[in-house]
């Protein structure tokens, strides 16, 4: 296989630990890891009834910026893309700002826009923030297109949005969910997916001026979407994907995996990994000793559990920590029980008492019907900051954007990460 030119290689500041290539029958050398410094916060305010699909990135100045969409309902005309800043000194999230609306996207892209959807964010090495978000003019999510906006002042103001043309068929059906990453020349790798006639993943190579340079198909068919990519070397990367297909003979649905060895020019045939997936989004981030860690709804049905997994030298994943687990209440529960359970859960959040009560009320509004309620924790998005600390954001019962910061240390003190200051 030809080695891609340096400009087409991935930008990587770390090296993965070598994989164990010994026969699979040997006992895997799984290093136990422990989670610490875990702090839970809520990012959004009460301005939107329903919130979903958060993304987060670290700013060069050390803080964080999160973005998500919120409105009266999914696909509503009033849905806006919100941003919020995390102040590293006060350790609090600022009040959210409605950065983008269907109306201003319509005015800027000069075409009718009915609704907004998924959004991802990243900051390039020059300090420019890039926001990629989905919009729909007519029809459902299958008719989505991607828009791009930038900020040169760390999210205080945003440029006029530009439409990315990514499909020859009326530019229909390209969506974002996975964390963007960078190539060696500073251009952006944007994992996207289609869900028109089929469901498949692609990797867009986008310049920092918002021009699509090229794209590569990461999977084919009707069952894989929402790819997340972990870059391990200038040429190698692994991607995990949400699985939308039928169950296997054992009744399971599992996360899909594909790999590249030529900086994304070609991807391997997807295979299943040992984590269940109820057709829900997954998250992936780098770990200094393990190589990678991920966050998954590791169930066959519904999204009542959200767990952190580590990637082991034997190339299998093992659970490390449960961020949310309502396994005993996996089926729908009565409203009074639901309220009691959530009231206990929100008592751990760092928000005011009034806000806690409003979050519970909003969750009841969004997740209960005929006195029957369900728990839902989904759309995880995970990053590792420059100090090695992790930031996980996800949708909490469609009513809150939850931010969990944590460190993941090896139980073996010799390989413990050092953090000078925890966010």
């Amino acid at each position, binding site marked *: 296989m030809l080695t891609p030119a340096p400009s087409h290689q991935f930008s990587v500041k770390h090296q993965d630990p070598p994989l164990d290539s010994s026969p699979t029958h040997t006992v895997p050398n799984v290093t136990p890891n422990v989670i610490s410094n875990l702090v839970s916060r809520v990012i959004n305010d009460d301005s939107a009834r329903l919130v979903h699909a958060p993304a987060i990135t670290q700013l060069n100045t050390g803080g964080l910026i999160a973005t998500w969409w919120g409105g009266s309902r999914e696909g509503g005309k009033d849905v806006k893309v919100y941003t919020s800043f995390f102040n590293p000194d006060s350790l609090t999230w600022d009040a959210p700002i409605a950065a983008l609306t269907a*109306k201003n996207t*319509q005015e800027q892209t*000069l*075409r*009718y*826009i009915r609704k907004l959807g998924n959004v991802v964010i990243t900051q390039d090495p020059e300090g420019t923030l890039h926001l990629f978000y989905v919009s729909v*003019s*007519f029809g459902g999510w299958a008719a989505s297109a991607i828009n791009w906006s930038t900020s040169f002042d760390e999210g205080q103001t945003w440029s006029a949005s*530009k*439409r990315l*043309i990514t*499909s*020859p*068929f*009326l*530019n*229909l059906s390209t969506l974002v969910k996975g964390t963007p990453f960078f190539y060696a020349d500073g251009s952006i790798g944007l994992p996207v997916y*289609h869900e*028109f*006639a*089929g*469901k*498949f993943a692609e990797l867009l*190579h986008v310049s920092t001026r918002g*021009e*699509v*340079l*090229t*794209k*590569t*198909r990461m*999977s*084919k*068919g*009707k069952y894989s979407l929402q790819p997340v990519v972990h870059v391990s070397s200038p040429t190698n990367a692994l991607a995990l994907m949400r699985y939308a297909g039928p169950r296997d003979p054992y009744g399971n649905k599992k996360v899909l995996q594909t790999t590249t060895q030529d900086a994304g020019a070609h991807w391997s045939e997807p295979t299943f990994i040992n984590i269940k997936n109820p057709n829900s989004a997954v998250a992936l981030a780098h770990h200094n000793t393990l190589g990678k860690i991920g966050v998954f709804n590791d169930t066959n049905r519904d999204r009542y559990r959200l767990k952190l997994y580590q990637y082991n030298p034997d190339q299998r994943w093992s659970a490390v920590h449960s961020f949310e687990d309502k396994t005993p209440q996996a089926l729908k529960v009565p409203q009074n029980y639901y309220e009691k359970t959530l009231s206990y859960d929100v008592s751990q959040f760092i928000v005011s008492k009034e806000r806690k009560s409003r979050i519970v009320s909003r969750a009841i509004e969004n997740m209960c019907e005929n006195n029957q309620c369900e728990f839902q924790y989904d759309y995880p998005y995970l990053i590792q900051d420059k100090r090695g600390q992790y930031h996980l954001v996800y949708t909490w019962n469609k009513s809150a954007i939850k931010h969990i910061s944590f460190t993941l240390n090896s139980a073996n003190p010799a390989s413990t990460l050092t953090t000078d200051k925890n966010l």
Partner: protein
Amino acid sequence: MSAGIISSFLVWAALLAFIFRIKNRPPRVRILIVVGIIISGLIPLSGLPIPLYIRAGIGDLSIVTQLLLSIYLINSLAGIYSTPARKVAYQQLCIFMLITGLWFYPTTLGLTYFDPYRFGYITDSMHWLILGYFFFGAIILLLLQSSWTSGILCIATLSFCVNSLESTNYWDHMIDPILMIGSIIFLMSSFIGQLKKKPEKKHPRQSF
């Protein structure tokens, strides 16, 4: 104003020109209809002119489609009828585009890893394949005595070189689904016309 925005106005104008059968009207009525078309294309409806709703639905049309729509509009406004030879040239172009669309569009559905659309990016090492394909098409049309439509392919290729559309992909300058639909309609109407075998009506003004 990008060519993409112009394309939505062209579609709106061509649609109205067809509905009002502008070509058959006396010159004064034609002018009135044209004024009406221009005004209707500029008046905002819920904050946006109608052509920009069309743009939201069908995206930006290829340069080939835009050139064909422009020719249709010019002919309609001037009351010009195409010569039989020119009609044949358009049929040949439509056949070429239909053949291209028949193998190209199914690949966009993600059924296989083969994705010729990526070859349309100039940064892709295989981009010469698609440039060569349309060059080959233009040569074939030229050999079929259809320099007019061969020229349309060349102009579309030149427009790609000057980034006239939002898209950075060569395919988007050459082909679009609306061109496919238009080609099918045009070829079917030509076919039905030939079946009826009516003698070609001679018009005092025959050009493109």
